């Protein structure tokens, strides 16, 4: 039986009481370069706790990507603050922000996730490479992840010869490899068929449980929304509902 409650703590069962890792206060983002001013984010206050498996949903243009970019430090808010582990990241210089992203946040994008000249394994270990992790550690971790996401044996294949679902799984493996604080996935299943979508969600959810890594993903796909443990709905840059899904 499925029951929905208004969010107080977004976590349930054994996850309850985990520390807050992302806190957003009075967030606004207004694009002024365009002819008409666009208020992509129009006053959002939210917090996310460690171990969440959360979907940001809403129609196209409601501000999902913009919101994820703000909390991922890819873009700076017009006003408001983003705290990650208590640190206000809007004060970071762009160089410091890059390093912060490298060491704290995993990203999965809708498309163009992988470097075409690198093999699946090289792509997956790319972040660990940038971090300067030793080869033995990388090999062990990638082998473990490829096993977990069901693409063992595809290590030496270039992205162009992998299916869309396999490519996204490599992207998830890369995001996860260095054990970031949280993973942001912007419509990771938008280009996938329903079977691949279900598989990717299974994998993400499994990893969320096993590795206790926080996943925040945007989507407007019903099948994906159904899998989330917390559903935040945006409309015109505002949160219109924030619910925790209890089973």
């Amino acid at each position, binding site marked *: 039986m499925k029951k929905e409650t208004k969010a107080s703590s977004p976590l349930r069962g054994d996850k309850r009481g985990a520390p807050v890792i992302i806190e957003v206060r009075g967030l606004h983002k207004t694009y002024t370069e365009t002819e008409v001013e666009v208020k992509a984010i129009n006053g959002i206050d939210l917090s996310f706790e460690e171990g969440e498996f959360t979907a940001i949903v809403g129609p196209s243009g409601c501000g999902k990507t913009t919101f994820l970019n703000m909390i991922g430090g890819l873009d700076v808010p017009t006003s408001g603050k983003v705290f990650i582990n208590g640190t206000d990241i809007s004060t970071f210089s762009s160089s410091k922000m*890059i390093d912060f992203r490298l060491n704290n946040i995993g990203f999965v994008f809708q498309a163009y996730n992988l470097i075409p*000249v*690198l093999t699946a394994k*090289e792509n997956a270990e*790319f972040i660990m490479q940038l971090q300067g992790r030793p080869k033995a550690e990388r090999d062990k971790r990638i082998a473990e992840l490829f096993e977990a996401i069901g693409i063992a044996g595809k290590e030496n294949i270039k992205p162009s010869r992998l299916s869309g679902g396999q490519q996204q799984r490599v992207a998830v493996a890369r995001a996860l490899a260095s054990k970031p604080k949280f993973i942001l996935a912007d419509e990771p299943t938008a280009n996938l068929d329903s079977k691949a979508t279900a598989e990717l969600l299974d994998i993400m959810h499994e990893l969320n449980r096993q590795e206790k890594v926080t996943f925040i993903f945007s989507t407007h796909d019903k099948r994906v929304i159904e899998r989330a443990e917390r559903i935040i709905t945006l409309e015109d840059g505002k949160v219109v509902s924030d619910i925790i899904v209890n089973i």
Partner: protein
Amino acid sequence: MIIFRIAWRNIWRHKVRSSIVMFAVTVGLFGGLASTAIMKGMVMDMVKNNIENEVSDIQIHNPKYPANNEIRYVIQNSSQVMDSIKKVDGVKAVCERTKIQGMASTASKATGVIVIGVEPELEKKVTGIYRCLTDSAGTYFASKHRNRMLISEKLAKELKVKIRSKVVITFQDFDGNLTGASFKVEGIFKTQNDLFDKQNVFVRKSDLDRILDMPPNSAHEIAILLNSNDETYTVLPVIKKMFPQYLIEGWFDINPYLEMSTSMTKYMLLIFMSIIMLALGFVIVNTMLMVVLERTRELGMVMAIGMNKKKVFKMIFYETSILGSVGALLGIVVSALFAWYFGNNGLDITSFSKGFETFGYSTVIHPILETSDYIEVIVMVFFTGLIASIFPTIRALKMKPEEAIRE
């Protein structure tokens, strides 16, 4: 290492384009190095010939002689002077000459010449004119008869004389009286310097001294050949100290053009290569800008996931460097082969070299490339790569990753 791997593989994403850029670098470098090698070969050959056939390493004159070549300004006790010079370290051979201006005339024509009276056996050790005889019937003062002369091919044509023809040479003797004598052409020579050939005729010093009534044991010019041209800089001051009363000059004083030419060769490569590198730099920058534009999303993505500015620069620098250095390596190898082969066998440019000899250049060129030339080129390629990376990197870093990855 991963960055280099990406750069390397990126190069081969556009095989044709990258190959064209590399080939352009190869051709550019070969062009620069080969023309430098040819110029250097020509100049050094000209300098060497000039020193060997004309000026020698060091010359001694009476200080008043060079102004007007007046017959009375001689070096006295010339044989003693020669004897003491022979003992100086680095000196290979010494000879003395009587040298005056005169008029050479035949039935058809008369022309002003410099008459050089030489002591054939000593002269042979210092200058190489005896090796430059063209007419196979000619000899270098082998005849036991008096009043023999050597004349250049050029002058022989002008005066319409052959071997065994007679030429009358007139000049003022030591006392200022007009005098002259008839000389029989014994040999015809040809150096690489037409101007030298046109001006000078050779006779025996003993004949000339007798006709001129020169004081015994005197000469106008003493020429010194050293073990190597470079030693001139060290030997010259020694000899200057020995004979402060005379004018003592190195080859670079006597013919400043030679020294200028030698030092010019040092800048030749720099000048040639700078121009070529500038052009190649543009080609590379242009290609890399194209690359950055093509990979906007990819670059945006790697920057989004945490690749910092330094590594973005590195990636672009590696890519430009590979483009540059693969081509450069080929260019250097081809140039080295070129310099090696033609350095040994000579590059004959007779067919399109009319007029070269007028300036003392040989028509068979031995291209020269030195280690320093290669080093210079490698350094230039490196810095071109570095500079050519800056602009595309700036372009890449201007991108906002969030915009680059937005669908």
